[in-house]
């Protein structure tokens, strides 16, 4: 049967190629879109973790993505948070969303000493820390993407900021400005968006205990351990899981429809061949298995093509859009492969049963 399946795929090159390309597009769509979403979230969460802080404290109801301005907190809460057993340091951060070169960024307003106290050490690769209220720090990816160098001016918040230093990317935000400057520009003096807390390592209080303590003591606040912040981000983006579901279903439906259409037309075209196989002793089950095998082979080739296309897109994104992160894991490939093959099997069932029900004598006289 395998030789016949291979021979059919090879013999009908255009049909096979179109089918493989169509299934591959579905698989690539799934891998690229979910990979970009997961990659951006995972990279943001990783940057949060890389601050070195243990806990993030925000007003209850604030966005986990920090992409939108939440209810602001008084900076003076920091002193009270530092009194909680197990907390070593607290750093207020005012976040703001703005655009640089038409791309949206979250910028952090911090006091660098306070930020370093919770572990947020920015490793400068060029330049120096800011000395002036209208100086800022950029990460290497943003600087590379836009060609910024130390000393360049960037219009921001209605003023012109100078790039004082460029730090190695991967810690917190891509842009840092002095918290005082940001507060003044936004008319939010004495306010911040969140606190990063550093806890005592190996102390009697675990991070989880401390977070629970904060939420008990400050019912208007919520405290999350940063090592599980990715889950918080995914859960808080409205419709993200539904989006993943829609993309997954779309890939499944594409695979299903392509195979259904391909195998259905193939069965019509090969009616006589089915009659021949039946005359040689092929059972109905054999015919169904043959149709399913061929569709699984086409889907498998489609999955390979889609995966290869995804890797090409990933390279292209890395080169042309260095600020985007696309996460494609082996598990993601396996999921996409399973989905493509499942769609293929489902799509082959109806043509398979139809082929098996063909009357052998009628099939043999089919022109």
């Amino acid at each position, binding site marked *: 049967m395998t030789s*016949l399946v291979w021979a059919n795929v090879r013999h009908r090159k255009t049909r096979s190629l179109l089918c493989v390309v169509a299934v591959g597009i579905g698989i690539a769509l799934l891998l690229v879109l979910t990979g970009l979403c997961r990659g951006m979230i995972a990279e943001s969460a990783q940057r949060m973790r890389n601050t070195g802080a243990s806990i993030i404290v925000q007003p209850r109801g604030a966005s986990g993505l920090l992409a939108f301005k939440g209810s602001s907190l008084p900076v003076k809460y920091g002193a009270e948070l530092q009194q909680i057993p197990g907390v070593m340091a607290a750093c207020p951060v005012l976040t703001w969303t703005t655009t640089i070169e038409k791309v949206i960024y979250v910028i952090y307003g911090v006091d660098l000493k306070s930020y370093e106290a919770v572990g947020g050490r920015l490793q400068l690769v060029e330049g120096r820390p800011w000395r002036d209220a209208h100086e800022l720090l950029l990460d290497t990816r943003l600087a590379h993407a836009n060609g910024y160098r130390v000393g360049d001016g960037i219009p921001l918040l209605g003023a012109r900021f100078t790039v004082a230093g460029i730090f190695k990317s991967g810690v917190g935000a891509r842009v840092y400005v002095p918290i005082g400057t940001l507060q003044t520009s936004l008319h939010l003096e004495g306010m911040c968006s969140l606190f990063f807390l550093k806890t005592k390592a190996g102390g009697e209080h675990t991070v989880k205990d401390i977070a629970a303590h904060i939420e008990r003591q400050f019912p208007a606040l919520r405290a999350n351990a940063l090592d599980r912040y990715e889950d918080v981000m995914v859960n808080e983006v409205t419709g993200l899981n539904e989006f993943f579901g829609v993309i997954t279903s779309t890939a499944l439906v594409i695979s299903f429809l392509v195979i259904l259409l391909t195998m259905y037309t193939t069965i019509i075209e090969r009616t006589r061949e089915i009659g021949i196989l039946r005359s040689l002793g092929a059972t109905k089950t054999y015919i169904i298995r043959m149709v399913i095998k061929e569709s699984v082979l086409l889907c498998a080739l489609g999955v390979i093509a889609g995966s290869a296309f995804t890797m090409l897109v990933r390279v292209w994104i890395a080169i042309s859009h260095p600020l985007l992160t696309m996460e494609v894991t082996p598990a993601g490939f396996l999921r996409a492969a399973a989905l493509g093959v499942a769609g293929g099997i489902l799509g082959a069932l109806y043509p398979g049963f139809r082929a098996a029900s063909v009357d052998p004598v009628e099939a043999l006289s089919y022109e």
Partner: protein
Amino acid sequence: MNNAVTDNFIEVAGLCKIYRTGGEDVHALDNVSLSVRRGEFLSIVGPSGCGKSTLLYVLGGLTTPSSGSVSIGGEEICNLSDASISHLRGVLTGFVFQRFNLLPTLTIYENIALAQKIRGTGVQRKEHIGEMLERVGLGGKKGRRPAELSMGEQQRAAIARAVVHRPAILLADEPTGNLDSANSEAIITLFSEMHRELRQTILLVTHNSDVARSAERIVQMRDGRIVHGPQSIVHSK
């Protein structure tokens, strides 16, 4: 399998096959009864549409009769399951068709090997494929696809596929219908040689009286019936 010519191997009794075409019933077979001895070479002759091919398809389990019975080797075949009737088609019988019915995407060797796989005799009989292709004069063309062969060669390949597993019954439906006289003669000679060598029961449908005369016995059909009786025209070889 005992191939000696001793008993009635195929028994057909009161066989009817009715097709419904354009709202009307067409009696393709009308109360056909026939006995065939084991190892007998029988020709079924008659004009187009007389039901001779339908009779062959019923005997080969490709279609079921509307009524009547068919037994092969004492076993009734009309009510068998799909698996059993498929086994009968694959193992007990071999089909040769007018239009050869080779799979165009496979080579001649692959066509025969696939048939062996379907029959479940692929592993133990694989070595027979080369021998059989040599036997039908296609030893040097086993890697060719059907479209690369002449019509006579295609039919010889189809015969090789039909007999490679040594079936007890060979059913041939107008095997020379698409061939010129030289190739027809070669094919009929091949049938006669194989019948002598393998002592298979052969039922050959044809409207060519010269081809029919190569058989041991001739049965004539008209309008779905055997018109001269099963033993009426006996060709003495």
